[in-house]
């Protein structure tokens, strides 16, 4: 098993490396003159030359990639084209905000969806199961902004239970922060719970359909014992896999949710940078998101390897 784990880790590192290259080399897709294209209508001879110097556009792409990557690893992403401040400085508080929101959502979503998924699987076909299924299907189908605006309208604008804008500041006390970010958190939670619950339910159902579960019933074991002692240890691996995969999805969902609630996170920053063609910031945000996403996927694989009973006790 150790061999499998180290293989997967190695593969993961290679993937991360290639992903960073993929992200960087999309900038080389520009056939024309990079600098004047970015400046668009404001291009003059001076500022074009200034941009070129700043981004070292005269060097060959591969070397620029190496520079960028080595800088990124150290936390230096160059300077923002919009504000001329170091990108890393601008990203840091935003990154913190986004992580806060994501972890908040994850802590609520994971136990909830695992619980709902297992319950629905055990009571397959019951009213509970069918309601939960329909609810999940509906939630998965709708875009995040629909849920977000719905919640905003009812809970914030009409009922005034929560603030309309999720304004956070670094000095804010912890519980105020929790309160202010509640709505965006719930929106994220709704989306991931739907996915996670469905996949958990499917995994548990598959395990419950195994012949050894029937054998356990035939030995006269009561249902709770069959589920807890026999089904869950085998469902563990697929459930853990599901959780990690969906947490990776948080990375993507956060972009839209931050926009809906005007939350000052990295998602907002990325969108702004894209519309302003602020390439260093776009690359930096893109890389960070991609690294988190890929790492969670790798984690999912590793955990699934480690919880597979056949691999833990080889012949």
């Amino acid at each position, binding site marked *: 098993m150790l061999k499998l784990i180290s293989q997967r880790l190695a593969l993961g590192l290679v*993937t991360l490396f*290639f*992903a960073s290259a*993929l*992200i960087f080399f*999309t*900038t080389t*897709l*520009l*056939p*024309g003159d*990079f600098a004047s*294209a*970015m400046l*668009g209508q404001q291009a003059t001879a001076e500022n074009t030359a200034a941009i070129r110097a700043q981004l070292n556009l005269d060097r060959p792409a591969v070397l620029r990639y190496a520079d960028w990557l080595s800088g990124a690893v150290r936390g230096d992403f160059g300077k923002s084209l919009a504000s001329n401040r170091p990108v890393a400085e601008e990203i840091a508080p935003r990154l913190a905000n986004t992580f806060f929101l994501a972890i908040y959502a994850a802590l609520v979503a994971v136990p909830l969806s695992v619980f709902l998924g297992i319950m629905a699987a055990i009571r397959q076909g019951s009213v509970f199961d069918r309601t939960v299924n329909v609810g999940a*299907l*509906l939630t*998965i*189908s*709708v*875009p*995040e*902004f*629909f849920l977000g*605006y*719905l919640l*905003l*309208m009812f809970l914030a*604008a*009409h009922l005034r239970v929560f603030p*309309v*804008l999720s304004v956070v500041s670094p000095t804010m006390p912890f519980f105020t922060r929790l309160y202010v970010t509640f709505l965006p958190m719930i929106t994220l939670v709704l989306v991931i719970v739907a996915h996670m619950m469905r996949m958990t339910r499917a995994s548990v159902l598959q395990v419950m359909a195994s012949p050894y579960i029937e054998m356990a019933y035939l030995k006269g074991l009561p249902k709770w014992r069959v589920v807890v002692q026999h089904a869950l240890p085998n469902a563990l691996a697929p459930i853990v896999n599901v959780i990690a995969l969906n947490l*990776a999805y948080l*990375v*993507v969902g956060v*972009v*839209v949710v931050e*926009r*809906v609630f005007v939350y000052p996170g990295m998602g907002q920053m*990325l*969108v702004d*940078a*894209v*519309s302003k*063609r602020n*390439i260093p910031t*776009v*690359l930096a*945000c*893109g890389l960070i*998101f*991609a690294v988190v*996403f*890929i790492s969670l*996927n790798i984690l999912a694989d590793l955990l699934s390897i480690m919880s597979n009973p056949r691999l833990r006790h080889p012949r």
Partner: protein
Amino acid sequence: MAVADAKLPAKKKAPGIRLFGHRVPLSAQIGFLIIFANLILMIFAPLLAPYGEGVVPTDLQKWASPSAAHWLGTDAIGRDILSQLLYGARLSIGLSLLTTIIAFIIGIVTGFTASIMGRWVDVALSRFADLILSMPTLIFCLVIITVVMANEDAVVTATGVSNAFFEGMVIVLVIGFLYAVPVFRLARAVSMNIVALEYVEAARLRGESIWWVIRREVLPNSIPPLVAEFGLRFCFTFLLIASLSFLGLGIQPPYQDWGSMVNQNAQAIFIGKPQPLFAAGAIAILTIGVNLVVDWLLSVYSRAHGENA
């Protein structure tokens, strides 16, 4: 003669609406209805819309609540929301369909080729696919869009196409290629599963050519999962394009698809008005409808395959 062979009893037909010999449950019926209604609205938008496209009616009122004159109210500039919704359907659904079709063609051709040609072709394509799939789609989209959009003026002046056309094409091609990858995976997997079955081997043993095998043995049996995947891909594409427009990075004004409608009307929510929910709701309804049909298709396929395998 044949004594111990029991003849299979005639299958009793259960009541209900049937399609291709399979019962269609209520959920799938609703799904079909939703899809059909959307298509009608999309095609006949000019005839059905009370006001013209992008027209600001004479009784200019911003953020008007739903009334007899404006069934869904008006938007930030005073345009009738219902009309905008109908016209926006063409962009939203049309672009998504086009993108899904492109993704499918690329994905299926590469997928079948990889599974049948095997070895180098398969390994190279699969590794590349793994790499693309390991990236978060939306993020990757954003990065590519940044770069390509930076090129916009150059291309527009060089080729003479309109900005809107260029932007539309960018979205369609970028998402089309990105989403071709999961289709490739599925087509390859489905094709490999079928290729492993003995009736395909029997055909190969006869000496049939590869194209005959694909056409007569593999393709007809892979249609159900591929159709289901088409539906799913459509949903993903549809949601992705809507999200991009919502973020202000997709369809640009003066053109409006449902996603940009949500974006432009977003302010209304903060004063308690439901304007952005209509377009968002329309997106939700169509996605739900397609998902219902896809769920049914997948259940039919898994049952049928159980009998054969």
